[in-house]
């Protein structure tokens, strides 16, 4: 357990709590974004190695000795793309919220009960 992974874990739980308890659609989307950030932190913390540096070879890192000097590049690569995808998915959710608001002039999730059973 590292500090970053604990923070990521807490953020995931806080985001889930927000999504479950809030009834405003915008706040639900914010909760989703918090979960997103928490997952990013969790993934990055898996690849972190104490005392090592970013996997970019330049003057300060010898190419032959790079294995002993850099952190794992794979989680960084995953998170890098996930951030942009998160942005696009958040935009899509906000557009859903706009559409729902224009239907019923309300952002309260309890006003939308067509699919409720």
């Amino acid at each position, binding site marked *: *357990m590292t500090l970053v992974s604990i923070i990521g874990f807490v953020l995931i739980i806080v985001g889930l709590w927000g999504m479950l308890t809030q009834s405003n659609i915008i706040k639900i989307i914010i909760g989703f974004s918090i979960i997103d950030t928490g997952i990013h932190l969790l993934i990055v913390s898996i690849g972190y190695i104490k005392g090592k540096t970013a996997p*970019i070879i330049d003057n300060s890192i010898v190419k032959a000795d790079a294995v002993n000097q850099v952190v*794992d*590049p*794979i989680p960084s690569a995953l998170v890098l*793309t996930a951030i942009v995808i998160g942005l696009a998915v958040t935009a899509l959710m906000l*557009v859903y919220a*706009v559409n729902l608001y224009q239907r019923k002039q309300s952002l309260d999730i309890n006003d939308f009960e067509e699919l409720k059973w």
Partner: protein
Amino acid sequence: MVKRFLILLVLIFFVIMLMPLVSDIQPQTELNPLAEKYVKDGPDELGSANLVTSVIVTYRGLDTLGEVAVLFIATAGVGFMLRRRKDSKLNPQKKRESSEILQTGTALLTPLIFLFGIYIFLHGHLTPGGGFQGGVVIASAVLLSLLSYPQAEVNHKILNAIKSLSGAFYILIGVLGLYLAAGFLDNRILPLGDFGHLFSAGAIPVIYSLIGLKVGSELVGILDSMQRSDS
């Protein structure tokens, strides 16, 4: 009351489910075998100084293609959801002009932000950065322009041309890798060049530029449909 209890139950269940995953994360002391192979062979094999880039663009290039496809689908969804009300644009209310400070700032900053975005995705194989970040920076320049000139419209022909051509050329370069090099999205279809210089790492700068243009134009498309929908 029942609802609160259920929410608490779901959260506790989730904590129990996720706890082993988090508590298993030990502070590592050395790279795992796969990462070690990427770090050891990557620089000589692909010629990219930024190892994250070599993982994204080449080793896991297919994943990145999938991510770009997800981005495309999200943009298409945004455009689809907001398009329906275009015909109800009977009374376009007049938007307030933005202040002079914002307009002057936009004129000064927009070219610089564009240049910075292009710099980021061209140097993706040398510095922290790349197509995704560069594309987002370019989209932020367009957002600034849309904020200061609310009546302005993005040229859809150019936007769609950039979107489609960059995506098509991305696939094309990937397929070229099948014939000229070892496999799909292999970057060694171009000479590797001097390690650590701008013209190096084979096709990685080309692919990352195309990803940058693709991501930038997709996000500009999202901004554009959001801006048009509120008028």
